[in-house]
């Protein structure tokens, strides 16, 4: 898995370059598992989870995510989550805010920066 992601990670680290925080405590996670406060750079948007379960197919889900700006290299931060099962989530995506369900966020892979202390 890490081999597969090597290239996007490099691209991401190039974008984060000046901040240089990549080496310390960065971890790879699905957006669907992120909690409010988690944030980082999107390293990959796949088309593989839940075949057929979205009523539109995974390829279509991937295109919709991409169209909304969930694209490799975009900066993302989880802002809020719903009351029931922490779903849906509201994220800041570059300069806009987007709400989505966790089940639709599984294919968005995030290189999360170290979580803020105290969480």
């Amino acid at each position, binding site marked *: 898995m890490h081999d597969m992601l090597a290239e996007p990670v490099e691209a991401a680290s190039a974008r984060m370059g000046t901040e240089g925080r990549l080496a310390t405590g960065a971890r790879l996670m699905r957006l669907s598992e992120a909690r409010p406060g988690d944030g980082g750079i999107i390293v990959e948007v796949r*088309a593989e989870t839940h075949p*057929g*379960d*979205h*009523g*539109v197919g995974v*390829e279509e*889900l*991937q*295109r*919709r*995510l*991409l*169209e*909304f*700006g969930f*694209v*490799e*290299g*975009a900066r993302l931060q989880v*802002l*809020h*989550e*719903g*009351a*029931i*099962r922490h*779903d*849906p989530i*509201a994220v*800041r995506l*570059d*300069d*806009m*805010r*987007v*709400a*989505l*369900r966790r*089940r*639709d966020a599984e294919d968005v892979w995030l290189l999360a920066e170290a979580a803020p202390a105290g969480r």
Partner: protein
Amino acid sequence: MSEAALSPARVALVGNPNTGKTALFNALTGGRQKVANYAGVTVERKEGFVTTAHGRRLSILDLPGTYSLRARSPDEAVTRDAVLGRLAGETPPDVVVCVADATNLRLVLRLILELKAVGRPMVLALNMYDIAQRQGLRIDLEGLSAATGCPIVTTVATRKRGIDDLVAQVEARLESGALAGDNRWREPAAHEIRDAHKEAQRLLKAYVRPPERPDTLTGRIDAVLLHPVAGLMILLALLFVMFQAVFSWGKAVGDLIGEGFTGVGGFVAAHLPPGLLTSFITDGVISGVGSVIVFLPQILVLFLFIILLEDFGYMARAAFLMDRIMGGAGLHGRAFIPLLSSFACAIPGIMSTRVIDNRRDRLTTILVAPLMTCSARIPVYTLIISAFIPNRPVAGVMNLQGLVMFGLYAAGILSALAVSFVTRRLFWRGAVEPFLMELPSYKVPDPENVARSLLLRGQIFLTRAGTIIFPLMIAVWFLSSFPGAPPGATDPAINYSLAGRLGHLIQPLFAPIGFNWQMVVALVPGFAAREVAVAALGTVYALGDVGQAPGALATTLTHHWSVATGLSFLAWYIFAPQCASTLGVVKRETNSWRWPIIMFLYMTGLAYAASLVVYRVAVALGGG
């Protein structure tokens, strides 16, 4: 040449949602607008006209907002087809004006790249430019214009700034004889969307300097409004205020209007000789028109709230908060608004399901919307409750009659959730569509735009509902009046009419649920609108005008009906599709008879089953 000079040049407004596109459309066209539907689809077609400084007439088409020409909802399909010139009965636009929120350019830049592939002459309107300036956002307009190959105009639609500039630029595009190039657009694949994003990112980096003072207000408001606990409490409080407004202010004005129509009817009846014509005018025309207008104030108050909350940016937040709660029943977060509207009247509720992109989600919402307790049920509930439910305190603080009323509302909501849950399980298993939604920045609603939208809603309700309700009222009047009573008849005239005969004919079907023939006869005219059943009961029991003495009807009913029958009638009204207008609107909105028929069958089935259970249980408990 002459033809081109005579027919106005066509300009289409395209853009992401929440970019102030409609405000720009209003600023461009002022009052010169007309709203219709696109042929064959229930998407609103908003067209307006503007005359340029050189006297050229432009027709402006406000297309539904979209993030991509790859359409996902009926609205977005219209935008795509209009831009591509594929829409039946529409001429392709001569110039496309792409409207962008100047503070949020990323996604619109990608849309511009798609639009460029279509090859039509384009002008980019950077709207909300004042907010961009306030935030200290710098945009290299010349550079961006050169890079995208389209002229850029900065606008502030709400203050009507930049409008003349925009019109002049559009005209310049027309004058320059810029012809539509080849259409190279096709649905982009995932890698093409990625490439477009890279290009958009490059343009942003080269020509836009990030804001010095970014908007932090939206984040701070969201911290409260999207809070898992506080956010829901605020939503409930807002709903409470909204209902209060609809049922106190709206209803008060509605009642006044209703009394006005009754007065007019009485006046006409007093001054015309009694007979068929008078009956047609008073019972058919005047009460027909009245039954439409009575709901207008409530609907306007409801829509005022909805428009204000929408323009403020709250509706997307409400959908966010409600998504999981409604999702448990298989409903989309966006179904929240339509279902809310249905408490006033299912007709505007069903009309507002257009905000739901997905067809299945939309159909489920349409199917359950009439289960929400609309205000037309209130007169029926009030009558039956006052007749059969004792007015006594329960547990010290509550009142049994109020409790029953609350129970009826709750039964409506719960059954709507249950029906949508079952629909999902039975018909559309597993297919829960993705839910992706932008949470726009908060903005103070612009009074002029709010007023204009409200006026538009009222107008649409009157024309749509009016064209459906009015003929139905006439039809019901006809059924209840013909043929007239024979000379020397002792029973009320309605008994001899078609409605009366129909009622007698189908009464055996209703015997198991405890309905007598008078009730069944009253159900026939009550099919026009629920509250008509009250007046019809008055007619069947030959009480004359029950509006004058509502208590008398309740007393009569207690003499003629058993408690079990009364309760059975209440249960019937929770579910029964006793509103032909709703079925008519469903037919229009879904463009097929299939859905109104399904709705009629399932609601009647539920009503019958519920009445049967209630009646049998009540009889068994000694209420027969």
